[in-house]
């Protein structure tokens, strides 16, 4: 194995040129594959891809989305104008915080929300409060030149106020898989790290495709994902988790609901008769002990699966990992 790498100097060099975080990620993704000999090929393939990307990136400037004079329009319809790559960034969205570190721009992050605790290094960054309806004063206090926000209506006012204060903003939806694919290059461009951005985007896409390519856990596996019990909330077809289930090889029983978090009734769940019920640790406990939930066949037959929401919570660069984890849980449940 090591002689293969040695024979490819580009792989080694480019591997050491990569920010440590991304290399780690790549390694983990790579080793996630079953140890059946495809490891070497995969490592080399990634190494070549990365090396090639660096060369191409270095050789072909300007990058496809140049920072100076770009006319990116974000999901709020605002135009991004940056004279130079952003140097002080406040990220008001856990997804973009994680992305920033992956892009190697972690040291440019000067503010994060209270919920952004991944990666570990993010904890050292100043907490500026809520990501939805943020404290604009606290954000401005960090003197950012770019603020990344989540496209929720509760952030409209903050965007106006930040722009009025002369600070650039990028506001995006980060609800679904496709959203992330769209956002990565835009943010990478704003930071001047286009090449790494492309690599990350490709890696994420590849990791998802890899999980999709695996054999389905069962011919037709239906699942109910329990989000909340007062009121009863689940994931609809318009949500990331529903997509994730699809990638992992199962079908969301409430996929026909257009909302991201539709409210449902116990009777309806029982009628749709999912094969498994997924829930976080607290929710699973409540489901198992509640007489009302016994109405659902999957609960009666003991097929309530615990999902650690920290891993699968939202779209991010670790989506592939999340999908893989989910699939493993589903597969394991079928073995019982």
């Amino acid at each position, binding site marked *: 194995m090591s002689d293969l790498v040695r024979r490819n100097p580009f792989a080694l060099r480019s591997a050491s040129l990569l920010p440590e975080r991304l290399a780690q990620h790549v390694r983990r993704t790579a080793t996630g594959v079953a140890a059946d000999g495809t490891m070497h090929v995969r490592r080399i393939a990634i190494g070549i891809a990365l090396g090639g990307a660096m060369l191409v990136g270095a050789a072909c400037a300007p990058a496809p989305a140049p920072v100076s004079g770009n006319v990116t329009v974000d999901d709020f319809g605002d135009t991004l104008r940056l004279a130079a790559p952003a140097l002080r960034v406040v990220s008001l969205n856990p997804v973009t915080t994680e992305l920033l570190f992956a892009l190697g721009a972690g040291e440019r992050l000067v503010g994060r929300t209270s919920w952004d605790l991944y990666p570990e290094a993010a904890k050292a960054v100043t907490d500026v409060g809520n990501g939805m309806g943020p404290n604009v004063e606290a954000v401005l206090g960090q003197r950012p030149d770019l603020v990344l926000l989540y496209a929720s209506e509760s952030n409209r006012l903050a965007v106006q106020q930040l722009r009025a204060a002369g600070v650039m903003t990028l506001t995006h939806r980060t609800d679904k898989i496709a959203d992330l694919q769209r956002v990565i290059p835009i943010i990478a461009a704003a930071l001047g790290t286009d090449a790494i951005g492309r690599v990350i985007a490709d890696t994420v896409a590849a990791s998802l495709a890899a999980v999709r390519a695996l054999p389905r856990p069962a011919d037709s596996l239906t699942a109910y994902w329990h989000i*909340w019990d*007062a*009121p*009863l909330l689940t994931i609809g077809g318009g949500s990331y988790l529903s997509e994730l289930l699809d990638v992992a090889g199962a079908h969301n029983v409430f996929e026909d609901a257009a909302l991201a978090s*539709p*409210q*449902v*009734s*116990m*009777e*309806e769940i*029982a*009628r749709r*008769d999912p094969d498994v019920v997924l829930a976080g640790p607290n929710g699973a406990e*409540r489901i198992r002990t*509640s*007489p*009302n939930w*016994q*109405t*659902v*066949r999957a609960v*009666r037959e003991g097929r309530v699966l615990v999902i650690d929401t920290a891993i699968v919570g939202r779209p991010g660069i670790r989506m592939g990992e999340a999908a893989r984890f989910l699939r493993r849980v589903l597969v394991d449940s079928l073995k019982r």
Partner: protein
Amino acid sequence: MTSKHWLLLVGTVVVAVLAGVAGGAVPMPLGEVWAALFGQGDATQVAIVRNLRLPRIALGLAVGAGLAVSGTALQATLRNPLAEPYLLGVSGGAAAGAVLAVTLGFASPLLLPIAAFVGAALAVLVVLLVARAVSGHADPRVLLMAGVVVGAFCTAAIMVGLATAPENSVRGALWWMMGSLGDAQWRSVRWVAAYVAFGIALLVLWARDVDVLALGEDAAASLGLPVERVTRRIYLAASLLAAATVAGAGLIGFVGLIVPAIARALGARNTREAIVASALAGAALVVFADLAARTVLRPAELPLGAVTALIGVPFFLWRLRGLK
């Protein structure tokens, strides 16, 4: 009240129960519903009918009867046709108790109703103490004003709680406050039903005293009634009865306000008749409202408090027209 009216009331309750069992988010042919009642048929359908619908209906009957009787007793005792249990601190206290529990992290299905009940009971006692401190005795007008003041204070406490509570639990607290029979389970419905039955029995026992109180304080004193003591005990009994319903099903407004008016419109001649008639009418109303709440926008469920308000407000306006 004529026997025809009694028959109408009882019949309405029976129809409500039948409709409640047969109707729901999942359409079921009547034959299957009947079979499911006896445990036959598809296991899921049996579970739906027996574990979901029947406890809900039982809870609805108890809550409706409790709120209506509480309203009847309070309106007569406070000599105000617009009085209802929620005006006297019950709803504010219960909601404040629930939100406090949620903020502190005790939001389990067991602890939340207890926190709500304790909150309501405390608010009721505070109202009584405030009224006594202000006027030296349980003067009905002062009770009502103290109730409004305590309610306002509770609202402020709720807002503080909601602003500082973790985001997910806020949604749960708000949902609970909008009222729902969705958590009905036999083991908890039993308690609520027993409590409500006891409360109603107590008020039936004291119904004659309420008749006398309704004449006015001086006339009641002339008839030998210990006005202060009787006002206090009826106020407490009626309020705690309402508090139990709130603990069981969240805030369901207007029932305590409009059902007593319905009972009187049907011809209830004295408090005893009004209590029994209110219990029947209130039980039927809540069961029907719950049926609407869970079928109109299926599979989503409307908050029960919203449905009773939608029924109650037009009825209330209609009654206001008839008042001189």
